[in-house]
């Protein structure tokens, strides 16, 4: 029974930890499927987290925080779009710039506004997206197995966590069942085909990066208002990059993205769990190794086991019509 409890606890943290990864990876999916590589997921998430923390602290409303986070993340996405779509700049450079801007400005503004060493004030109550108890969670908690799974694992997450997982089928549906999705996939593979079909390549890609902005804003909000009680400097801690790894790992497909994020979330949860304690048979494992595992796994699996991840063909290449 103790093992079972440990497992439930581990899976529960897996879900919590994979939510920001999932949101960021889905965000990246929209941009990259349209042919705009986005290495700035990290920065947008961080800026979003700060905006959420700051706005929620000032207004006392989590919804205001969400709005601010989405607003700033969309704005940064549009900056990325302006540089890489309109001005055909290098998408990596633009993404890196956004990461730096976000890392620096959140600390400076945080210190200037709240004077707590770059943090935003601690939040509580309505200023956070707290956990939601699903119906009958209380009643079922006594039922062995099914009840425990339902009440301890599925119930009790924040609204944004549920949204994140609902976004997986939604994204699949958008991508493969709608006109927008068809065009989005087409523009990432062959923008000239889209252009000659009479569709604006630029407008299509702008819409894609706006989707990316909204989702990274959600991811930032989750970090600041659900997982934590406010913004802490550098709180994204590389999650934007792990999300990119998950995206590649999943070959830019929504459902595999979810499983990749759950896997990485599980590794994260596991590394926290075993921190300081030894593993049976293996003994003490350095925490750094556990933290590096998602990356090592991506490289190893991509290299040998799941075959080549073929990115959208036009990814990273600005569309130039005239010669």
């Amino acid at each position, binding site marked *: 029974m103790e093992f079972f409890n440990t497992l439930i606890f581990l899976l529960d943290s897996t879900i919590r930890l994979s939510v920001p990864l999932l949101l960021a990876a889905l965000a990246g999916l929209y941009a990259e499927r349209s042919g705009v590589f986005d290495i700035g997921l990290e920065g947008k998430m961080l800026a979003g987290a700060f905006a959420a923390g700051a706005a929620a602290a000032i207004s006392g409303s989590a919804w205001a925080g969400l709005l601010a986070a989405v607003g700033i993340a969309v704005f940064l996405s549009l900056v990325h779009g302006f540089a890489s779509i309109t001005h055909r700049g290098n998408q990596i450079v633009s993404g890196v710039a956004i990461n730096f801007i976000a890392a620096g400005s959140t600390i400076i503004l945080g210190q200037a506004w709240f004077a707590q060493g770059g943090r935003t004030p601690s939040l509580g109550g309505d200023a956070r997206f707290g956990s939601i108890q699903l119906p009958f969670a209380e009643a079922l908690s006594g039922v062995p197995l099914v009840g425990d799974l339902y009440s301890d694992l599925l119930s009790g997450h924040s609204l944004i966590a549920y949204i994140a997982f609902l976004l997986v089928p939604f994204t699949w549906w958008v991508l493969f069942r709608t006109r927008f999705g*068809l065009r989005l996939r087409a523009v990432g593979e062959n923008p*000239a085909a889209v252009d000659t079909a*009479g569709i604006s390549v630029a407008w299509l890609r702008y819409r894609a990066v706006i989707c990316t902005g909204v989702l990274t804003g959600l991811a930032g909000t989750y970090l600041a208002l659900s997982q934590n009680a406010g913004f802490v400097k550098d709180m994204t801690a590389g999650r934007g990059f792990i999300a990119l790894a998950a995206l590649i790992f999943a070959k830019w497909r929504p459902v595999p993205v979810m499983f990749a994020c759950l896997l990485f979330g599980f590794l994260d949860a596991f590394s926290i769990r075993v921190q300081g304690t030894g593993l049976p048979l293996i003994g003490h494992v350095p925490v750094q190794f556990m933290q590096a595992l998602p990356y090592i796994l991506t490289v190893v699996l991509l290299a040998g086991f799941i075959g080549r991840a073929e990115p959208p063909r036009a990814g990273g290449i600005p569309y130039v019509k005239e010669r």
Partner: protein
Amino acid sequence: MADAAIELVGIDKSFGMVHANRNISLKIPAGTIHGIVGENGAGKSTLMSILYGFYQADRGEILVGGKRADIQTPSDAIARGIGMVHQHFMLVHNFTVLENVILGAEGEPLLKTSISKARAELQRLERDYGLEVDPDAVVEDLPVGLQQRVEILKALYRGADILILDEPTGVLTPAEADHLFRILRQLKEEGKTVVLITHKLREIMAVTDNVSVMRQGTVVATRKTGETTVEELAELMVGRRVLLRVEKGPARPGEVLLSVRNLTVRDARGVTMVDNVSFDVRAGEIVGIAGVAGNGQSELLETITGIRKAVSGTVTLAGRPVDLTGAADPAELRARGMAHVPEDRHHMGLVLAFEESENSILGYHRQERYRNGPLLDVDAIRSDAREKIEKYDIRPADCRLRTANFSGGNQQKIVLAREMEQDPKVLIVGQPTRGVDVGAIEFIHKRLIEMRDRGKAVLLVSVELDEIRALSDRILVMFAGRIVGEREAQASEGELGLLMAGVEQKEAAE
């Protein structure tokens, strides 16, 4: 004269320093097939891209059906019933045929209804025009001939009355090209107007009603096809008299310099690309390998020249065997007297960002005469390059110009000069005149004959059947990785065409 489907008035377009279209006026009568010929870079594709709204003209007017049409984007053109089949297909490789056809013409925001509508419409088009293609096939799995059909279907699905085809036959077998022409005639009978852009004069003669000739960005003449000749059109294209036939004496074959035996090559996926191929090339003869692109010619060339590994088989170069299973080193083969003009000069033949002089020694840069100790002897390289520029009439005559700034024909001459001036025993040439204008083709053909007459063994691979027939002393036909036949140079086009399509082989098997 029938009403004009399209009228262009004073179209002018520049790309930076390049004046691609100069004050072009042109009338295309409705319900006809109108050919536009011209050399590469004459401005044909630019003009048609303007008509399709892909580029915007700097000046000038377009009239469609007698009405002034303001075509700013492809969707404006589509709305006026203009469809275009581009030279490089505008298809999404991992989409199905249906998805490609509806892209941009979906109608509703959800795909379900538009897909089923398109399926029915495709069936109708298939019936009316004989354009069969599996709507659920993924485009990249289709042969190029069918991919082109998808492009035509795309245009028709959008309700095109005027269909522009840009160099449509470059990737087709003669039989596929004939099928395409039948489709075009059918379209004409249905009252559609077809504009055919090509540099192949034979196609113009075969299928068009009228033909306009472009040269250096202007339309120099428009003729009724029935009232002109290939010779006249060629002269109009180039601006001077052109020898369409290559003049050459009989070959005097000597000893075998290149001998290939039972060569088998597989690609990275394990698919057999070259299947048990054997042949000889003697000194003083040109052996041509004909075939539709993608039947193993590229792999054959790459293996013989040491770029790709063979699975089995032997190659003997001037009496000495070449180690094919290990890393046969292209540099070593060069040193032993094999020169290689690769099929794709951009991909393998040149570094476009380099100066002309650097490209003119690439691969031979270790030779003593280009070296000054461990360093390159830049003066020697440049004077060497200047000699080649003069001898091969490479323009502009500037050995310090970036190679990317030369035209296709002159880039090809840079490669040819580099390889031929090494005085090799064996010359391997892939697609010597791909993307090269008529004037330069004549020059390159003469040089190849000259190499033959100097006792070199020349192996020529080309997808241009005319070129193979004009130059070769013996013709081998490749199909599906195998040599399916050897013919004399006098073999008829029809006979070779059947071999290229693999027809004879099937009959023999039955």
